[in-house]
């Protein structure tokens, strides 16, 4: 799944409009984002009204928002529950991925023994694995987090390993000649070099962990965005289904944006952003 990371650098529009330059940067960005959202909402509303799309396929945005406003509690609870599952799974998967990546980098034999198993493990359909996880851990928040973890750790492992391998051996030799310990080598040179690669994987993992949480909820839970989706399907309530989809989109993009912002902070030297 690592090549999905090509997907992750879409928004690179120029910011050179002189009229806007009097405003601070973040305000300009927020204004542009808001403008984009308003335009999208208007296009949605207008298209449904004037093209006569049946509500069964695409309800009006206002109808969906009204439905969410009518029962905000269910959506809020679902959102927070899924957010918690996603975050725990993501954090565990990210940490495990980086650690295993480092271990694989240090111990070649370990990597050659275990890496193929990891690759094969990723072909196991997550939902089948989910059935087992829910059985092992019960129908708890933890079970969903484990499923999110399972989807998250692999791309992080792969990219950590790739990143560590891009370290210039001459720099390693230089640092060693100044008496750097292995730990210093790792913290001052190897991890910073790998960090841009790791963040590419983390951005991918942010959306994968959400997938894991939602799919995990399909094994019978009572709160969560996945539950809302399923309930809406069973009652054929398309408005509620779109409401849940909007909640998922908000959670997904929000989380992605947070990771991308963290990346800009931490990997400030990278030219990629």
């Amino acid at each position, binding site marked *: 799944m690592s*090549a999905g990371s090509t997907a992750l650098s*879409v928004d690179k529009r120029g910011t050179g409009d002189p009229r806007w330059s009097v405003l601070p940067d973040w305000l300009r960005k927020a204004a542009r984002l808001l403008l984009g959202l308003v335009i999208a909402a208007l296009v949605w509303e207008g298209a449904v009204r004037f093209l006569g799309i049946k509500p069964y396929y695409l309800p009006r945005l206002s109808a969906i928002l009204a439905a969410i406003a009518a029962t905000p509690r269910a959506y809020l609870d679902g959102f927070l529950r899924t957010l918690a599952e996603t975050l725990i799974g993501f954090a565990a998967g990210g940490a495990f991925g980086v650690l295993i990546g480092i271990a694989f980098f240090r111990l070649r034999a370990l990597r*050659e023994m275990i890496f193929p*198993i990891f690759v094969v493990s990723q072909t*196991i*359909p997550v939902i*089948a694995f989910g059935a*087992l996880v829910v059985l092992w851990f019960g129908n708890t928040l933890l079970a969903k987090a484990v499923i999110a973890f399972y989807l998250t750790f692999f791309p992080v492992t792969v990219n950590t390993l790739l990143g560590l391998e891009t370290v210039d051996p001459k720099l390693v030799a230089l640092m060693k000649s100044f008496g750097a310990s292995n730990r210093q080598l790792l913290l001052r040179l190897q991890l910073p070099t790998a960090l841009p690669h790791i963040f590419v994987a983390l951005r991918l993992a942010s959306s994968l962990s959400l997938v894991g949480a939602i799919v995990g909820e399909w094994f019978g839970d009572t709160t969560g965005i996945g539950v809302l989706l399923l309930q809406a*399907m069973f009652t054929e309530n398309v408005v509620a289904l779109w409401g849940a989809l909007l909640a998922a989109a908000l959670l997904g993009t929000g989380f992605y944006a947070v990771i991308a912002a963290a990346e800009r902070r931490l990997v400030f030297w990278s030219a990629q952003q």
Partner: protein
Amino acid sequence: MSAALPSSSLAVQRGVLGAVLLVLCWEALARGLHLPSYVLPAVSEILACVWSKRALLGEAAAYTLFEALVGYGLGCLIGIGFAVSISMLPPLRAVILPVATAVNSVPVVGYSPLILLWFGIGVASKMVMVAMAVSFTVFLSTLAGLDRVDRRAVDLMRSFGAGRLSILWRLRLPTASPLLLAGMRVSTVRSVIIAIITEMLGAYGGLGWVIYQAVMQIDFVQVWSAIFVASAASLSFFGLIGFLERKILFWR
């Protein structure tokens, strides 16, 4: 992924060793601790089940692979089509890219309840889901590939009187093909998984359906055997596309 894969024979030996060790530990754990099969069945038990239910599993795998393949083909065509039309008609970019990003902001499995409502629980809904999942990845990787073309090479071909189509066919597509094929290879495993996930929410057959039935009957040996077959199916699909990739990209 392949860049991180080892290739020397020692590495292959170690890989095999790792797999054998895993199977042995698994078997010993399951047998030694007398774990009930709903916790962890022994590998031998799973393989025996795969063999004894080979007709059922084979049929289900064929059903799922059919859905995945058709959806995969559709998704590749849609993804490449959109990417090529953007590169032929640059103004389209401002329309297609935001829409594609907005659609993709929802994790793709989130759409499966909706798609099941729209297309019913037959094979059509699974094909649509797979096509959606595949088309976005292929679209972005093709677009990235097409954008990589050297401006000067385009100008050179133009100066020799080449039209847009001929530039597309002789220059842009060959330049884009490594990234395009990498996107296609990554999408293979995904397409099988998406088909199985959608089947679990409602289907008349297929591996996802078999898994769901087995979970309902608490027959976890059958769950594991279906997982085994599903992995084998995705791996062979992955291998097939990887093989085609090497054939097409003979210059690499």
